[in-house]
């Protein structure tokens, strides 16, 4: 693979409005929603009544800081991951792409690298923006700094999670090739299936739930291990990476096998 292929994928991504809007939606939703939650928590700090958030801010601060904003914002990353590849099929641009790169796999690899880098950069900016905005809003009630145990790892973990999530969505987009179907599948895997699995009683279901791609993946964004977690943060991230790698490999295999 050459620098030219990377440049070409960068041109493709930046020259289409939908990708630019998805990235913007990710940043705005993540920062906006996190800020809203931080403001509400801060304003209600001294009100009577149970405040589970206040307790969690001490035991697992990043869960409160990142949970709402990225729980919602990650959907934009899912959509973007799908459309960077499925839009090529829906518009027919894939034919032009594969005429230029008939071996196909270098095109997929270049796309994955460029998209992962964009995702990484945007996630880094957004995660740290959310962290510093939210902690400063809450600073009069609770002090959260990067030097506290697990906090820096959780921030980096959130960035890594969002980056791998993009590739996870891209792989599914490349497998399904239809934008709507692929987005529905990714959203189902990320937010619909996990709570449904927990409805099944028993330890097996608990383990299945723990090994689901994003359930395992988000553990790296937690400051501290929770009692119910099946996996440690890095184990969880490893499981998520394996899921993604397998899906990308399947995507590459079918890209080679199928007619364009």
């Amino acid at each position, binding site marked *: 693979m*050459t620098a*030219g*292929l990377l*440049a*070409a*994928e960068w*041109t*493709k991504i930046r*020259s*289409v*409005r*939908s990708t630019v809007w998805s990235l913007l939606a990710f940043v705005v939703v993540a920062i906006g929603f996190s800020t809203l939650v931080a403001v509400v928590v801060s304003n209600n700090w001294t009100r009577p009544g149970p405040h589970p958030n206040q307790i969690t801010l001490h035991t697992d601060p990043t869960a409160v800081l990142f949970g709402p904003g990225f729980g919602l914002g990650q959907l934009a990353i899912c959509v973007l991951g799908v459309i960077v590849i499925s*839009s*090529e099929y829906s*518009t*027919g*641009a*894939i*034919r*032009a*792409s*594969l*005429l*230029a*790169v*008939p*071996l196909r796999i270098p*095109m997929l690899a270049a796309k994955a690298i460029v998209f992962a880098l964009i995702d990484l950069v945007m996630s880094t900016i957004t995660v740290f923006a959310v962290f510093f905005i939210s902690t400063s809003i809450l600073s009069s009630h609770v002090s959260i700094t990067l030097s506290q145990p697990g906090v820096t790892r959780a921030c980096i973990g959130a960035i890594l999670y969002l980056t791998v999530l993009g590739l996870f969505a891209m792989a599914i987009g490349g497998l399904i090739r239809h934008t709507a179907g692929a987005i529905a599948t990714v959203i189902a895997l990320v937010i619909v299936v996990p709570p449904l699995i927990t409805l099944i009683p028993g330890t097996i279901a608990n383990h299945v739930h723990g090994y689901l791609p994003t359930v395992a993946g988000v553990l790296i964004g937690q400051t501290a291990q929770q009692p119910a977690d099946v996996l440690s943060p890095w184990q969880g991230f490893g499981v998520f990476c394996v899921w993604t790698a397998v899906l990308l490999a399947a995507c590459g295999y079918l890209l080679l*096998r199928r*007619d*364009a």
Partner: protein
Amino acid sequence: MLWRVAEAPGHIEARELTKRFGDKVAVDHLSFTVEPGRVTGFLGPNGAGKSTTMRLICGLDWPDSGTATIGGLAYKQLSRPLTRVGALLEARSVHPGRSARNHLLFLAQTQDIPARRVDEVLELVGLSDVAGKRAGGFSLGMNQRLGIAAAMLGDPKVLLLDEPGNGLDPEGIRWVRNFMRQLASEGRTVFVSSHLMSEMAVTADHLVVIGRGALIAESSTQEFIQRSSERSVLVRTPDQARLRELIVDEGGKVTQDQDGGMVVTGLEAPRIGELAASASVVLHELTPQLPSLEEAFMELTAGSVEFGDTRTS
């Protein structure tokens, strides 16, 4: 000693190319060769498998059996393929949200073609004014021009053009025709598909004719026209039985037309006149018939038209 690297010849060669979609055979053991330096027309009715064949040559679809090569190599073996082969495919292949310039730019980047070449090909096809506009707003004709610009991006020796006249106005069609002739005169291989015999008659030097995915004819355009427009003569006479006998004895073939006339093939009009005179048969009419090229083509491909298939393959 002269160190000269032989220029890779730009032959396109299909050998026993076969492609099935389910139980439908789209391309059926198709073999042909396309030579450089001339325009080769790829002719067949809609649904005959022309587009599928082109996609097989370009490595977009995989054949079930057989091979297609360009200069002896499969498309996927070509390094920087756009500098060897330019292809305009029938189906749309541009993201409607991307500008013409960015579409060509990303293609150029994959081949390490300098970006200034993008502006050159935009100029070549007359799209410079709308280079920054989103392709989704383009007319059919502008899309065709963008497709031709993409095909010319790498200044390739081999061009595959699938129905390039689609959506073009008469002026555009003339432009494409002259453009193809010019490319061929520069020594390039030009392989152009069409379902219109009339268009190919004035554009192509050579023809590959297919129907139902199988080869029907491969010859020069001139030869094809001569062969398929076999002359027939319309004869009217009150004494049909007698004249028929004379014509058949002389080696001609007689069929009845619906108005009571006889259509004679295998004999020229003057000879029929002489035969009639020698036997004192009265002639009411003796008219040499020239079937149109379109008719000849229809006749040749009769039975190979796929009906009920709205999707051109």
